[in-house]
């Protein structure tokens, strides 16, 4: 009896791992059912602006927060769509930081979703209609992972570009070294 129980427990464990690593490429994205509309609040939009309202989230949970692959896709899109241009790698800059526990417009999935879709005053562009909604949900999951709101085994690790050993960083350093004249040795004659 006991080996059977252990087997069942192992199978259950394996199934949870499946959810964490599952890669689904189904096209009808989640949140496709009609949802109530919300006004755009940001004045900026990427490329050519769209008129009209944006979609509001159906539920207050990101469908991707248990899935490491989707969160990683969110991380890629965060860079591709230049979220990092203002929020940096989470530390903030032009925009507020995303890796702390302070949220101006709420840190739950629905609030982050509406912030991305509607935009926010003082510079956050309105991405509603410009980014497919399932991708917005992936970005939401990644943004929440930065402040430690996701399971640790789902959250992606630090980007390779942040490591000092990265060849591209090294190239930048060489360039800086060339640009700056060497400092005089202490005690050297002028």
């Amino acid at each position, binding site marked *: 009896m006991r080996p059977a129980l252990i087997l069942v427990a192992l199978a259950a464990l394996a199934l949870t791992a499946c959810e964490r690593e599952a*890669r689904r*490429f*189904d*096209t009808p*994205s989640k949140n*496709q059912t009609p949802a109530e509309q919300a006004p755009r609040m940001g004045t900026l939009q*990427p*490329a*050519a*602006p*769209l008129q009209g309202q944006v979609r509001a989230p159906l539920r207050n949970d990101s469908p991707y927060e248990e899935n490491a692959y989707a969160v990683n896709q969110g991380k*890629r899109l965060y860079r*591709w*769509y230049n979220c990092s241009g203002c929020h940096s790698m989470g530390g903030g800059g032009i925009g507020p930081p995303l890796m702390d526990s302070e949220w101006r417009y709420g840190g739950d999935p629905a609030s982050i979703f509406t912030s991305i879709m509607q935009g926010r005053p003082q510079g956050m562009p309105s991405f509603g*209609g*410009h*980014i*497919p909604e*399932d*991708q917005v949900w992936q970005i939401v999951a990644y943004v929440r992972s930065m402040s430690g709101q996701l399971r640790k085994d789902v959250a992606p690790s630090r980007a390779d570009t942040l490591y000092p050993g*990265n*060849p*591209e960083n090294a190239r930048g350093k060489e360039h800086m070294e060339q640009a700056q004249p060497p400092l005089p040795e202490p005690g050297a004659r002028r």
Partner: protein
Amino acid sequence: MTPMMNLFLRFVAALVLAVLMLSLSDYALAANPLPEGAHNVLDTMGPQAGHILDLWRVFLYLCCAVFALILLALLYFLRRQPRGDAGTPPELGFVDAPEPAPRRHVTRAVIASTLGLVALIVASVFTDRALARLPLTGAVNIDVTGHQWWWTARYRNGGPDEEFNTANELVVPVGKPVIVNLKSDDVIHSMWLPNLAGKKDLIPGRSASLQFRADKPGVYRGQCVEFCGLQHAQMTLHVFAVPQEQFDAWVQGQRQPAAEPADPRAQRGKQLFQSVSCAMCHAVQGTLAGAQRGPDLTHVASRKTLAAGALPNTPEDLAAWIRNPQLYKPGSSMPATPLSQEDLDAIVAYLGGLK
């Protein structure tokens, strides 16, 4: 005939057949190039692939000769061995005998093997020398960047305002050297144009260079040959070798910004393209769409394939691809954009006009 002899004869027959098929396929394929892009190491169309094929032949013939000699030696000793039956007592005399010193023919075999290996090394060195001596004056410079799972090509000849991007298809002039600078955007890829040159890896954070020359006009199929993820098999690169005048005309065309759409449906498509998710990743030069994450679509209608060779470039396939990219290339970074049939038709009409 003993079972061992039987096995041995089958082995020899298979070997002879393999060599025969290889030499026959050489002629068969040379006579009949594949219709949609030749993809064959034995059918060389440039000096670089020719040098590599020569080296391959040296390896093949030498290794076949060594293999045949070993099999002949095996046959000889099989026939020479003393025959016995189930009643013959085992011969155990050698257990007590002292270890025999290296015999003369062992020494000879070692010398012959060493010479053979040295000959292969010398052949490799000469091949590398020949590959490095491709004359490069007046070369076409192209930066090729590998992505999951497609290729960017940036033509670097001319001033900064004369450079242009294209994707998944290279057009090169016949008889002119081409220098390809290789980079990777994400993971390790490898570029291989079997008819034109050897393989070269694209390693993130490093750059590599590959030189080739196409001596005959034609379409050559290339492929990523380093496993790079789900759609590695659908990461194709086509090379179109065309006469110089045709190449110059193509370059002039590619340097122009996108054509302004004439009919109202395509104009609507242009507006949609810039405002929905297309413009978040794709660029069409001369419009608001300027993102570089997906293939540059400024002259997309002049290409023969879509999605790195996954689909032919027809309006129907383009519409199907935009509607559901994950059906044709699961895992691709292109998302499905929810569009009405009318909007989709408008975007397809717009892209179809970007010659």
